[in-house]
């Protein structure tokens, strides 16, 4: 049976067919759907972990225990999980272990554009890169075979356009793989220096063996057509090359670490010149040069952003695209915004009004940096808000902390905010932290997390009590407040930033897009409106200014009830 599938769904299907037993992941665009689709297979145990390091360690445990295990993450998630990755490379596996990493060239939904292929090289693990959904499924299965055959973790790398594109996939049955026997093996599994030294030797030998394997592997495809132009590409770049230069000869690399040396040499013999087409870093290009093969790469192709068929036509064939139609006036941009009814809006309205310094974090609330609220000062990485505020206080003194807050979501706090809060308490900081507790992991499309009280399969579970957690690490001042009660929320923020000790405000209100929010009905603006535009300061996409004053859009309102709380004239009422 054939089915149209997202690349991410096909990876999930590949895990299912490969007989995978355990999957542990943390959500992150563009990788989230892999684990969501896996959670629909009852044959596989799946979970959301608090962060990627925890997820990968759990998968390592499962693989060491003899099961086939997988963990999926976005590129920056692999940074979090890099510590276990580098050492499990030495340990190897018992049951197969596959890490899936989704890079985001073009930064559709990310804070940087890192090329995770560098991790495979640095950690000395094999990496496969599929180019469509059918390969997503096949390569996932192949990755488990390679993992067990070569006693190594394997990374499957996708990019946004493979992860989030749909193409046809042939479905096959699941092949049950028994959980392997577990026997204590200190020399293999305990990485103290004495055991790690011989393991490093083994890793280098493994890389040589994998290099041989790769040249003979059916993961790569050599398509010899016109030999005047040769192209080496992998992943989505292969599709662009195929589209732009259908007559060229192409070496499509499926396993990009370690490189198939013999195959590349063979290809170089057959074609007159070679273009290496790869988004982001010159990984294949540098390898070709290192083995003495002359290629054309980043001297004509950019290091930045996504490639396209048109770009390749222009750079390789010299074909300029026809001048496209253009509007003769500027078209206003449409950036992403906090949704109508967003629970974060009340928080940023108050922080903006008080003109505080705000160290931000990763999540929907990153949008608190946008006009008109323009509240957030800094965003670095997951969990980086509390520590940024702490560092600022240590550099600039306690007075600065009196006008500074850190903001982060419930899921992000559990991910890696809690360690920052411990740092503040332990090192006598006085940071005020606002946990935006909207009862869900929002930006990635509503996943459960340890603070929601539900598992990935929506089963009730023990909920992390954020208030008790903050108390337990030594924060005495913990306040729970509703961010839509803006007057009270403002009072609470003023009190907490004034305190010369660490404090936590838990801003509690569910995401407007989940059932728990329970918003019904709508509000309208009546004739008491003085057109003072106070409601416009909320930056709510459902309120627009018309010739007759502000108006609530009938297609966008959710009936959240925030705007009546900022209107001084009682002009916003229930319809």
């Amino acid at each position: 049976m054939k089915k149209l599938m997202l690349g991410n769904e096909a990876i999930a299907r590949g895990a299912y067919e490969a007989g995978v037993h355990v999957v542990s992941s943390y959500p992150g665009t563009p990788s989230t759907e892999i684990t969501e689709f896996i959670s629909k297979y009852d044959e596989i145990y799946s979970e959301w972990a608090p962060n990627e390091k925890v997820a990968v360690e759990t998968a390592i445990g499962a693989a060491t225990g003899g099961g086939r295990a997988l963990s999926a993450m976005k590129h920056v998630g692999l940074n979090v999980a890099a510590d276990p990755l580098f050492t499990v490379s030495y340990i190897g596996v018992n049951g197969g272990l596959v890490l899936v990493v989704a890079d985001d060239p073009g930064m559709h939904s990310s804070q940087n554009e890192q090329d995770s292929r560098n991790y495979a090289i640095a950690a000395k693990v094999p990496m496969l890169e599929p180019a469509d959904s059918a390969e997503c499924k096949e390569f996932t299965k192949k990755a488990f075979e390679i993992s067990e055959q070569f006693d190594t973790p394997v990374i499957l790398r996708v990019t946004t356009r493979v992860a989030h594109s749909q193409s046809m996939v042939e479905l096959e049955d699941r092949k049950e793989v028994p959980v392997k026997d577990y026997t204590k093996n200190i020399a293999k599994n305990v990485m103290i220096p004495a055991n790690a030294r011989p393991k490093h030797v083994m890793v280098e030998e493994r890389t040589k063996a994998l290099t041989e394997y790769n040249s003979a592997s059916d993961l790569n495809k050599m398509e010899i057509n016109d030999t005047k132009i040769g192209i080496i590409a992998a992943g989505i770049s292969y599709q662009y090359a195929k589209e732009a230069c259908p007559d060229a000869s192409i070496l499509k690399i499926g396993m990009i670490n370690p490189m198939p040396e013999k195959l590349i040499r063979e290809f170089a013999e057959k074609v007159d010149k070679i273009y290496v087409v790869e988004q982001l870093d010159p990984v294949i290009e540098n390898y070709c040069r290192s083995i003495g093969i002359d290629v054309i790469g980043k001297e004509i192709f950019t290091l930045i952003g996504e490639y396209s068929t048109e770009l390749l036509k222009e750079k390789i064939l010299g074909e300029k695209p026809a001048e496209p139609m253009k509007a003769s006036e500027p078209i206003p941009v449409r950036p992403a915004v906090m949704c109508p009814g967003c629970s974060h809006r009340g928080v940023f309205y108050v922080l903006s009004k008080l003109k505080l310094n705000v160290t931000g974090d990763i999540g929907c609330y990153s949008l608190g940096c946008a006009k008109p609220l323009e509240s957030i000062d800094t965003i670095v990485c997951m969990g980086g808000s509390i520590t940024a505020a702490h560092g600022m206080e240590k550099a600039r003194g306690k007075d600065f902390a009196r006008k500074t807050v850190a903001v982060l979501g419930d899921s992000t706090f559990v991910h890696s905010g809690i360690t920052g809060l411990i740092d503040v308490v332990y090192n006598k900081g006085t940071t005020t932290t606002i946990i935006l507790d909207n009862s869900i992991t929002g930006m990635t499309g509503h996943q459960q997390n340890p603070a929601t009280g539900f598992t990935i399969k929506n089963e009730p579970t023990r909920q992390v009590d954020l208030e008790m957690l903050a108390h337990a690490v030594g924060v005495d001042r913990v306040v729970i407040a509703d961010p839509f009660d803006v007057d009270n929320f403002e009072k609470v923020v003023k009190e907490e930033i004034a305190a010369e000790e660490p404090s936590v405000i838990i801003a509690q209100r569910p995401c407007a897009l989940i059932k728990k929010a329970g918003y019904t009905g709508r509000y309208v603006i009546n004739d008491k409106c003085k057109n003072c535009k106070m409601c416009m300061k909320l930056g709510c996409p459902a309120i627009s200014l018309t010739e007759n004053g502000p108006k609530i859009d009938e297609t966008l309102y959710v009936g959240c009830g925030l705007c009546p709380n900022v209107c001084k004239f009682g002009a916003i009422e229930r319809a």
Partner: protein
Amino acid sequence: MFVNSAQLSALNPCRKDCDIMNIMIVGVGGQGTLLASRIIGAAAINLGGDVKLSEVHGMSQRGGSVVTYVRYGEKIASPIIGEGEADVILAFEQLEAYRYISYLKKGGKYIVNTQKTNPMPVITGAAKYPEDILGKMEKMGISVTSCDALALAKEAGNIKSVNVVLIGVMAKHTNISKEEWEEAIKQTVPEKFLEVNLKAFRLGYDA
């Protein structure tokens, strides 16, 4: 098994010999463009050829400008449609229609929902929503079919069915039959929303 070229060229009457159909769906995050692309994908599979779809998830779904691509034909490599390559652009909102005109192929077809949603720069007063977008597009020689899909969606019983109304408007410009489109909707839409969506499709089709 492959796509009938008559079926393909019907969507794009100006390019009789085409073997690949490129459809772009543009709109505002949250308007249901993903579902629309999946319905077109399902209808395209039923033609028996190759199909690729590309979607955008994550941040831009939060009210930003969103684009999805559907490509079908005998064999598809790239899931992405470049400038000047779209046979049909299905626009869920006027400003978004205007934003992507550079993607339309010469002689291509625009289907535009007349709905307007102000982007944040317009709401804050930093920019103006352009006037008479449809008139300007027509003056540029673009073939535009417009429709108040929101009104029809209301008539169907759910304002969220704007996406399926627009599929209906597009459908009658194809020679994939009405029944085949309805079958694709049945395959894609959850059971409990099926009735309202089929009604929305028919209202769009007859508009």
